[in-house]
């Protein structure tokens, strides 16, 4: 009688001990997840990339600081090609970006080519390979293995050389390397002709494409939406037709332009233009059109609604994510809506 009771007691004690150990393990696991130093929670496979200027305005840093849990990658404009020999100018990491990286954001410096050196450079095999090596070393020195290649004017003659360069860079970066390549939103026949230098399919094998789905209207055109909904839809449709969806990020514009009567144009932020917009204009799916602020001036700006619709198009297209310019002055509503599918 006593022996059976003792056995039961021992079994109960053993079970309690096992449960206590299990509970402690689970608690410790649960407790370690939201550690302050760990990377913030990311939404599934969706990516949200924040593009930054070389010297971002403090407002841009504050916005990112506040909403970094929504952003998976930060792309500061630190690198600029400065000649046909493959050398480039650089910026050293700023404190804010270093903090973002410490909080788990992937830092992917942008290599720009404002002077249009890329075409010549890509076609010169030895210089191109040298650039891949240089870039990999520079990225390592910057503490990252990721880069955004933002060559805006790749001529058709470099169509095969560009993917070759991306492959060479991928090899130089090693297994952890991540390459993003910006590609134009070619919608019209003229734009398609101008975009022949970009082999979307071939580029998307070693890299993720960022579709520059903006500049339907800009300083170089007449006044109009930065990216009308139809333009944006067409850009997304054409991109996913030519590259795997999982390899496509869609660039969503969050700014506006003001064209003055004398034909000049200047970029303006949502914060600058929203107060002057009529409530009804802000409901236009193509963005808000404003008269003024100067006599004869016209402004177009992406509204909360137009941005929301673009994000919906991107979500429905099931692409890998979106890329947003963060310059400061973006609408606060941008950050309170789901930027991509959870």
């Amino acid at each position, binding site marked *: 009688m006593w022996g059976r009771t003792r056995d039961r007691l021992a079994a109960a004690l053993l079970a309690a001990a096992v449960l206590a150990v299990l509970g402690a393990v689970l608690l410790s696991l649960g407790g370690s997840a939201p550690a302050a130093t760990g990377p913030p929670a990311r939404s599934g496979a969706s990516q949200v990339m924040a593009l930054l200027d070389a010297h971002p305005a403090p407002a841009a840093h504050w916005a990112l600081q506040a909403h970094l849990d929504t952003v998976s990658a930060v792309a500061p404009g630190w*690198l600029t090609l400065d000649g046909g*020999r493959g*050398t*480039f*100018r*650089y*910026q*050293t990491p700023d404190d804010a970006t270093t903090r973002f990286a410490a909080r788990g954001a992937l830092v992917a410096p942008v290599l720009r080519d404002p002077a249009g050196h890329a075409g010549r450079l890509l076609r010169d095999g030895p210089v191109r390979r*040298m650039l891949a*090596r*240089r*870039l990999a*070393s*520079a990225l*390592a*020195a*910057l*503490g990252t293995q990721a880069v955004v290649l933002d060559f805006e004017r790749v001529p058709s003659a470099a169509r095969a050389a560009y993917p070759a360069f991306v492959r060479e860079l991928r090899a130089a970066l090693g297994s952890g390397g991540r390459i993003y390549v910006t590609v134009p939103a070619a919608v019209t026949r003229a734009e398609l002709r101008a975009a022949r230098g970009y082999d979307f399919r071939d580029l998307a094998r070693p890299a993720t494409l960022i579709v520059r789905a903006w500049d339907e209207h800009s300083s170089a055109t007449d006044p109009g939406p930065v990216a009308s909904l139809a333009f944006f839809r067409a850009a997304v449709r054409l991109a996913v037709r030519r590259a795997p969806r999982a390899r496509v990020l869609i660039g969503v514009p969050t700014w506006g332009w003001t064209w003055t009567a004398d034909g000049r144009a200047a970029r303006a932020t949502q914060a600058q233009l929203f107060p002057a917009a009529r409530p009804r204009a802000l409901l236009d799916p193509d963005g808000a059109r404003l008269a003024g602020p100067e006599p004869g001036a016209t402004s177009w700006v992406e509204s909360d609604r137009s941005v929301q619709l673009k994000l919906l198009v991107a979500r429905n297209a099931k692409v890998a994510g979106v890329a947003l310019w963060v310059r400061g002055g973006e609408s606060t509503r941008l950050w309170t809506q789901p930027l991509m599918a959870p």
Partner: protein
Amino acid sequence: MIRRLLPARGRPLPPADGPDRRWGWARRAAAWATGLIALPLSVLPFYLYGHYDRLGQLLALHMERTFSGPELATLGPAETAFFQRNTLGYRDGLVVLLFHGVMDGHSASGENPEDTTIATRRFGEDVQMLRAAGFNTVSVEQVDAWMHHGGSLPRNAVLMTFDDGRADAMLNAPPILSELGMGASVFLIGGGYPEAPVYYASPDLLRGLTHKGWSIQAHAVQGHQSVAAGDGRRLPYMAARRWADGQLETLDAFRARIRAELIASRDAARSMSGRPAVAYAWPFGAYGADSRTNDPRIEAIDLEEARAVFPLVFTVDDQETLALVTRATDPSRIPRLRVDPDWTALEFWRRLQLLIAATAPEVSRVG
């Protein structure tokens, strides 16, 4: 009360060794104990002065270096192998490094509150890194020959420069560099030593360095100070027209002042080393090219005058976008990399790698 303590009138005083003799040993012991305790305490002010006061630290350093050299920090084998394996190589190019002071502060890590003074241990680690990574130090004279007379530089050439000729740097850096077979150049403030003999290196110390392969070049005589520049502002001597008697000096007067200062600086460096001075470094890096000026024409005047006196002129411009020095670099605007005292050896190495990767005409692996 007082009356009770005083001896009564007519009564003789007790002899000094009278009734108190039995307590004499206790008094003597107490005196010895007090002395023994007070002796170390008397050293305390000297210790605090030598430890926490800047001038005291310098005096202590002078004394310490009379008897022993600085301790050479060493890198671990893994770090050494990493630098050997991963450093990029360049040819026909140059990186110029700028240091000011080398001295331990009073913090646990030896770091200094000043942003121009690198801790001795960290300096040792930095030069060990340079050595392990395959950088080769060159002299200013070699750079002059390379830029102007078709000379050559070794692979991964680096020129180490020390501005001001400070005593801390000249006492700590040379033994460390000598240990590794490296040399450097000093940009001297002529006349600094007589005014602040503890702060600046003595002429004997500097002359001794020239026998060890160091080079003495020009930095300033009067020029390492600020001048009144109007509107209550004070701006660097070489970068601003001086405000006096209610007006700015004329451009001609400014030019004459600059020319005199450049020549005086050159002569001061030459008299110290006994060799011609071929290089000049702007005091505070200021020559009118940034906002520290009161006339946009000053930059052109400064450069023109400096070119007339020196074959090589060094700046500290564009720290964030610094490029490798090549033969194509303007010899009157040779950029230098200011080595941040807070950088670890790895951070310093990364900064050099970024510079080389981005701007060297040709790159390869050293290892």
